């Protein structure tokens, strides 16, 4: 083999105390497609961002065509003919495709958009893109926008293309079209890296596959010589014991019954598709899945924040024994119905707490309707704030410190503390330990366990499979908005979860354009 187009040697990148990439070595050759496979948070995107100039590695070397390269900015990356297509498109909505493509370029000669459009059409014809260069971005479908992004890097003359989860937003037909284009680019001698966690796509498109896990390089295989099972095992790894206490569920009754829940997003794509499950009291129900499989929408639908198109969510009141339908109720109406629902959202300082307000004021977000007349009652929330700081060992200068000044773990303690103080019957948490250190994480696990013992139905959306397996009683696996399985956490294995998470390959087959 000749000199590889890209060679990464011992690349390490840390963010604060978190190591996102550790001693990673990787090669990509011209005229081949390499899949970079890994779970969420395994460091795939971080690694590629170092090639595209967004991050700079803390240690290690990058070689482009055999020569050591220093890439400090996206501009440096262009100079090395590296182009990255990000998951979130960077396009100006009211500009045409051609205007977006030529934006920021310092080409010689007079600026004439007609010439640009002609050149864009030439590139389209060469690789088989289907695009109208004078169409405005806001009139385009997601797949057309992605095409514009790809042409943008080709127009700049990129020889190395990096695509970050390019199929996440595409229908299977669009995916096949994209793959056809990628194969043509490969024949043209381009080096292509495609970041993905969809196994069948890896097997379909790539020549070789490199696997990352938790920031570490696991290995590289020839796609032709491997299979899904082997790749899954490399991706999820061996089970790690965490010693989380798990008590047997007691006095389980059905608390929350979700039936056939279906929910479309603004593009008309099904983000939740016929979801059915039951959350039981005295039990922790885990929800696993690749990021963006519908976890957020599911929790928000239950909390009354997300409208859904069909299906039902029924709450069984433990006091009266009656069933309450939560369909098209606002969070306030849900509370008025006597449903004690607590929600610890993923976006702590966006949806959960107000960063600029202090701990007491944040407690009042749940009790601001209490008090006489126009005046608020502040004494009870202040007491609550004091208790939370004491019981959950929140590190803060005082209860009148704005919560945005607290560290991530302490913010989470304040939020969980407030939600638990309402003595809920259903407690939903989304990524409750994300970004928390070990001690804070265990504190949260213990809190959830004690809620479970009190007979609360706990729903725990998580990303770390080891935690899900040790903390939860049952695990529901979401895949592309559908339930791909509900397993017993005591009997399930990581491989099984990994397979279920990546099982559903239909992407968004029901949402043809």
């Amino acid at each position, binding site marked *: 083999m000749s000199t590889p187009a890209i060679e990464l040697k011992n690349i390490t990148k840390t963010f604060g105390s978190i190591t996102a990439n550790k001693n990673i070595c990787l090669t990509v050759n011209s005229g081949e497609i390499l899949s970079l496979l890994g779970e969420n948070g395994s460091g795939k995107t971080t690694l590629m961002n170092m090639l595209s100039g967004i991050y700079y590695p803390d240690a290690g070397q990058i070689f482009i065509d055999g020569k050591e390269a220093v890439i400090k900015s*996206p*501009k440096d990356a*262009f100079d090395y003919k590296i182009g990255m297509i990000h998951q979130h498109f*960077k*396009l*100006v*909505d*009211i*500009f045409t495709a051609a*205007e*977006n493509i*030529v*934006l*920021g*370029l*310092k080409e010689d000669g007079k*600026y004439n958009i007609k010439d640009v459009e002609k050149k864009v059409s030439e590139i389209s014809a060469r690789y088989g893109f289907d695009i109208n260069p004078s169409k*405005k971005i*806001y009139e385009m479908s997601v797949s057309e926008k992605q095409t514009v992004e790809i042409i943008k890097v080709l127009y700049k003359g990129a020889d190395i293309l990096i695509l970050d989860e390019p199929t996440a937003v595409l229908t299977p037909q669009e995916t096949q079209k994209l793959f056809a284009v990628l194969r043509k680019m490969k024949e043209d001698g381009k080096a292509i890296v495609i970041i993905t966690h969809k196994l069948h796509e890896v097997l379909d498109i790539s020549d070789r596959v490199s696997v990352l896990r938790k920031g570490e390089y696991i290995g590289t295989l020839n796609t032709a010589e491997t299979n899904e099972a082997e790749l899954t095992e490399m991706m999820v790894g061996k089970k790690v014991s965490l010693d989380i206490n798990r008590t047997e569920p007691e006095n389980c009754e059905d608390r929350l019954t979700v039936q056939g829940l279906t929910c479309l997003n603004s593009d008309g794509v099904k983000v939740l598709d016929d979801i059915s499950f039951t959350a039981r009291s005295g039990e922790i129900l885990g929800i696993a899945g690749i990021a963006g499989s519908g976890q957020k929408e599911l929790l928000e639908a239950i909390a009354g924040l997300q409208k859904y198109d069909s299906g039902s969510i029924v709450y069984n009141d433990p006091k009266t024994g009656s069933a309450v339908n939560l369909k098209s109720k606002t969070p306030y109406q849900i509370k008025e119905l006597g449903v004690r629902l607590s929600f610890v959202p993923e976006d702590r300082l966006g949806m959960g707490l107000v960063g600029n307000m202090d701990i007491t004021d944040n407690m009042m977000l749940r009790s601001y309707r209490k008090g006489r007349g126009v005046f608020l009652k502040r004494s009870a929330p202040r007491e609550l704030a004091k208790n939370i700081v004491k019981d959950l060992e929140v590190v803060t200068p005082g209860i009148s410190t704005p919560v945005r000044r607290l560290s991530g773990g302490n913010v989470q303690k304040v939020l969980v503390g407030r939600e638990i103080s309402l003595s809920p019957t259903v407690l939903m948490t989304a990524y409750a330990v994300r970004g928390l250190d070990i001690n804070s994480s265990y504190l949260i696990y213990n809190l959830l366990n004690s809620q479970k013992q009190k007979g609360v139905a706990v729903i725990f959306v998580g990303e770390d499979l080891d935690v899900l397996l040790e903390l939860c009683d049952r695990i529901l696996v979401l895949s592309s908005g559908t339930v791909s399985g509900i397993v017993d956490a005591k009997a399930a294995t990581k491989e099984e979860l990994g397979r279920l998470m990546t099982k559903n390959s239909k992407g968004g087959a029901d949402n043809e354009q």
Partner: protein
Amino acid sequence: MLFTIAQFIKAAIIQGIPLLFGATGEIITEKSGNLNLGIPGIMYVGGISGIIGGYLYEHGNDNPVPILCILISLACSLMGSALMSLIYAFLTQTLKANQNVTGLALTTFGIGLGNFFGGSLLKFFGETGSISLLSTGLAYKKALPFADKLGLFGDTFLSFGFLAYLAIIIAIVSSLFLSRTRAGLNLRAIGENPATADAAGINITKYKYLSTIAGGMIAGLGGLYFVMDYTAGAWTNNGFGDRGWLAIAIVIFALWKPKSAIWSSFIFGGLYIICVYIPGLSSSAKEIIKMLPYLVTILVLIFISAKKKKEHQPPASLGLSYFREDR
């Protein structure tokens, strides 16, 4: 009747010119995403700086040369408004101050500055009376040489000083700049989506500074036109009135297009003085009619908001500070 209409058109154009300068300047600024509400103040400063420059030259000379009168006051005016917009750019861009607050503060400051020097400039030189720059005023008011040979047409459309034509030329050039040049494309991208522009390697700080300063200098010329041509070199405190706000209203009315700002300015100029041409109006009725331009602006805002046509919306990141994301 024809004569009255011609008089009205002429008056509308004269009223419209300062508005056109202000509106073009504000459009150039807003295209970069900077909502400079300091424009009314900057126009005051553009006027008073021109007056100061003109005064210093004219009163030191017994026989002022017309071309020097113009050049000196013009340079002073441009410097004054450039400095004001530099303050705005520095505060909002480098220090990331809130754009609305900064702009409103600059307007208050600019009006105060104008009135302060307008009221006390003569006292500094031990004179009394009010500022009146006869030579400079005359130089600015000089009409095209053939205007008086063309009868009513010449009087209606060609009898203005050179700044009036400059206003129209600047508006047209700005329009071409925004639609036909790379720099214009880059500037519009910054106002729409700075993160995308940043990723495309465009120097956002440079563009925002330059467009804000250039826009302020253009707007300042509106103030200069008012004091030199409209009032012929005389300053009266608060004489410029609320024309700066009208200019900002025109930006909306013209849907952020400099070319449309030309006719919009003349319509607004006409609405501003139409009460004088309607006979038999009581003074309160006149005030109500003077309100028309603002009413029209509100209607336009309602209309474009309801229609939601993407091209008619303000630049998407107007008024927002841009922070580069570093996750």
